[in-house]
């Protein structure tokens, strides 16, 4: 069974603070993704990665950084968190190109920025 684990599952942060969301996958997939989910917007892609050391901008990268130090780990970093970044964040891994493969999602990280 494919496994993607996110931490923390719940986080309350203050405006201007730094937040790091972590993701670990045991699938040995090359590709990893960070999405955010808000009511009325579905899932929107923030950053993604093709492998260790690579990060690419998704559709809504502003205010976010990403880090892929290893095949297994992919982090999303909010250097200066704002209330507009309150959302549920999902990490996923996959090994297909051009959408050809299945994405395996974690259970989500709920972030509240006060």
């Amino acid at each position, binding site marked *: 069974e494919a496994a*993607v684990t996110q931490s923390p599952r719940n986080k309350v942060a203050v405006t201007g603070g730094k937040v790091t969301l972590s993701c670990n996958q045991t699938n040995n997939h090359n*590709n990893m*993704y960070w*999405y955010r989910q808000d009511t*009325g*917007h*579905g*899932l*929107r*892609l923030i950053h*993604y990665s*093709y492998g260790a050391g690579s990060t*690419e901008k*998704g*559709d809504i990268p502003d205010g976010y950084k990403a880090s892929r130090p290893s095949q297994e780990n992919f982090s999303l970093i909010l250097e200066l968190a704002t209330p507009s970044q309150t959302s549920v964040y*999902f990490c*996923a891994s*996959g090994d*297909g*190109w*051009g*959408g*050809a493969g*299945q*994405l395996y*999602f*974690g*259970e*989500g990280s709920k972030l509240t920025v006060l």
Partner: protein
Amino acid sequence: SQWGEENLQALSIQEGEDVTMNCSYKTYTTVVQWYRQKSGKGPAQLILIRSNEREKRSGRLRATLDTSSQSSSLSITGTLATDTAVYFCATATNYNQGKLIFGQGTKLSIKP
């Protein structure tokens, strides 16, 4: 946006009924995937259908793809209360560097 406005929907039906959810997209796609998301969980893939396929089945699920009208549908026959979830379609092309772009989803509620 890559998506038509009709993609944001909510449906409520009785258990045992059949249901079809539709998805239209604006740009060329090579693959459509359908995902289901249950409350409090991450999305899970149901079906992947490629641009050279018109139909794909998996158990009670049937997906169609019409590239000429740029639309896809997901049908569930004999719905169960456990089918209650949000259903997303997602598309990808050879030109978007492996990105899978999700629609806004259809919230399906099955009344027991």
